[in-house]
């Protein structure tokens, strides 16, 4: 059997990846709800900043664990099993990983803008901020659900 980087710790890394994803989905959803409140005149700015920072931290942790478990997944799960028997799951995984990477821009934007903008006064920046929050929320929900589906088909 080939010796793949962190192959022995893959299951533990996958569990940690899932736990961090749970925290990420909670923070992105709460943050989207809070940012929607900016449009309706409810300015919970402090909580918005806390959630934006939590998103950045949990996104980095989730992404990091995902990157560590990826070589094992790529060979033992995708190359040997999914690509042969469950091609749709293989394609779904590639969508999920690419979407996750595309979420980087909104994550950093939310972290930085939540620190410097005042949603009450900077009305011209509000719509963009809310759009980032909702797009990121959609990406994270898609990634979490597809991750659950894929690991139900075959885990590391």
């Amino acid at each position: 059997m080939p010796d793949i980087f962190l192959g022995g710790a893959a299951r533990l890394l996958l569990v940690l990846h899932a736990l961090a994803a749970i925290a990420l989905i909670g923070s992105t959803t709460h943050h989207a709800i809070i940012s929607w409140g900016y449009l309706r005149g409810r300015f919970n700015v402090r909580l918005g900043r806390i959630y934006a920072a939590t998103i950045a931290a949990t996104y980095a942790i989730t992404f990091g664990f995902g990157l560590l478990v990826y070589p094992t997944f790529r060979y033992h799960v995708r190359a040997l099993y999914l690509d042969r028997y469950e091609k749709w799951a293989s394609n779904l995984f590639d969508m999920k990983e690419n979407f996750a990477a595309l979420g980087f821009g909104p994550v950093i934007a939310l972290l930085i803008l939540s620190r410097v903008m005042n949603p009450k006064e900077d009305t011209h920046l509000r719509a963009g901020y809310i759009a980032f929050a909702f797009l990121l929320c959609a990406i994270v929900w898609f990634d979490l659900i597809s991750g659950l589906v894929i690991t139900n088909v075959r885990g590391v």
Partner: protein
Amino acid sequence: MKRQDALYVAMCVGAIAFCIAFVLPSFVTMPVAWYLPLDRGWELTAKPTVLGLDFYGRCAQGLAGWAIAVIASLAVTKRMKSDLSSRMAGLLAAWTIGMIVLCIMYFVWTLVFRVPTPAPLPTWYIPR
């Protein structure tokens, strides 16, 4: 330009640059850093001959694009005297969200119809 406006512009431009740098290897034949899990090594190539992952390389490329775009944008907006108008802020958000959604649609379109080639089964492999 106000600090928050300059950072807003930089974040939008950075996100667009990340998307372009991340997706570019799918359109142009160019060398990307590939990680070869079975060899436990790296190769800078357009397409390796053995099993490899280009995801790390594309992410690094995207990050580099993001960093360059953000630094350039901050340098430009620092010299601008006028404030960011509501129209321009809306347009920037629309371009950024549009670019990310376009990339998402591209990946959906290409991956839904992909037929992956499985790796040959090794002798030690036991199906479960």
